[in-house]
């Protein structure tokens, strides 16, 4: 009897081999006139060039949005997007928000009760009441 290999579709395990960042694009919007954009305008000139150079895998777009508060919008590979309003924030605060967008998965926020999740099956197998010796009562 010939041994046949089990046919299985490979599962994506991000980070086991290569790591693909979930955030694919970040849009930055600012206003030239409004005071709430002061920090954002300063950020684009001072801290943003270094951040953008450190993340070549993310596409960045910078565009004005007159008479609106400044916004940073992250777009993810699952199709979702995550906008954060950064009005009246200092450049370093905005940098923190951009790091948050970069690290986010794009999923909806959920309450995490179990800190560890795994796609690997347990080495002990799934418990069954019909197997084993059982426990006499």
């Amino acid at each position, binding site marked *: 009897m010939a041994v046949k290999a089990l046919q299985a579709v490979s599962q994506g395990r991000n980070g086991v081999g290569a790591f693909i960042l979930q955030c694919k694009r970040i849009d930055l919007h600012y206003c030239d006139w409004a005071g709430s954009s002061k920090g954002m305008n300063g950020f684009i000139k001072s801290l943003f060039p270094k951040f*953008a150079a450190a993340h070549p895998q993310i596409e960045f777009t910078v*565009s*004005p949005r007159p008479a609106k508060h400044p916004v940073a919008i992250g777009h993810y590979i699952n199709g979702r997007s995550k906008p954060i309003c950064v009005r009246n924030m200092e450049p370093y605060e905005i940098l923190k928000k951009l790091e948050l967008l970069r690290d986010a998965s794009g999923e909806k926020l959920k309450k995490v009760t179990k800190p560890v999740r795994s796609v690997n099956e347990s080495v002990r197998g799934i418990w069954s009441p019909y197997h084993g010796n059982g426990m006499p009562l």
Partner: protein
Amino acid sequence: MRHLPRLRGAVSASLCCSSPSHIRTTAAVAAVATTSSSTTAQSLQRRTLSTSVTDVGAVEVQTPPQGLKPPSQKWQVAVRPDQITDPAYVPAQDGLELEEDGGLDGWWENPANYGVGKEWVGFGPAEKVTDPAILEVATYRALVEALLLSQNWSDPVAREAVLSSGWGPMVLTTTAAKTKFHNRPKSTLLCVDREEMVAALQKHALPATERETQLESEEQVETAFAAEQEVEVNGEAETAVTTEQQAGVTEEAEAALAAEKTAEVKEEDDLTEGVIPAEQAQALVKELGHEWKQANLRNPVLKFFAAKRIQKLTGHKIPDGKLVAITTAGSLVKELVKPPKAKKLAEEIENKEIFQSLPNVKVFPRRVTPIDKEKMVGRWKVIREELERRGLPVIGTANIDNAIEKKWVTGAK
């Protein structure tokens, strides 16, 4: 109950202000200032450099604004009712029916009463010079003047020669200073020989005849002003009959005085503060070269004088904080010659080429509209064709209203 203390006497004379005595008061104050500060004038002028032409011993005397016409103080005594011979005369029954003569009605609104005194005259030109060549030449001129004056300040001839020389002569004739700049580029600025400098400058300063006429006109103006003051003093003491004539004379004298002063100021401006043409400035920049920009500029008095002179010539005021950081002539030029500040962030990014080396960053100069987004993915052409085929508006809503259901839901009328 609280009792407020009463005023014990009349208000002091210094608090009261009356127009005719204003000029005399200021003159008296100036006279006191002259006597008290004349002893220290010499030492003060050695320490603080001024950019205006003044005599060594003289102290600035406060003068009234030129052409100012104070409201006339004339008054008339009305003829007694029983002595009126005019048959058409009807006595007034009410205060409102009385005719008003004189007073301050419309005096403040009439600009002719202020003369040149009302016009604001700034220290430097109102509009800043932006041409880089002119700024560079102005910096060089200011530095040379500062250099010469700091060493020859006590000499009135040298001082006047420097300050009254124009653009071209000042820059071109100080070849000795230029030689010093060029020979020792990294050393502290050195002074040239005084006699050499005066001789060079006097060649290009005002011709002697013109200077004499200018001095004569100044004397005439001063004499006229003194006469005017006397007229005013007499005018107060005399009766109403003579005041009218004298007021007329005074007004004429004031008008003439104002005209003379204006002409004088204009001449002075043309002489010293006229801006050099850009082409001439560019030629001078080429001639001067760049070596002089390496000269050290650490002497604070020299630097301050140069900054003050630059402000007078170009209208650029250098803040103290930046003035401290300026250590060479080149950095002074760099501080002045700057591209105009960008009004928009996108322009600034483009000018500074911040994201030039980053392929993952795209900067848009204007708002990215939904149509722009469709165009980016190449879908807009298809959308437009389909909209046109269906007879729908491509941009906007045309005359199509909102859905009627919306009104039903919101209850809006």
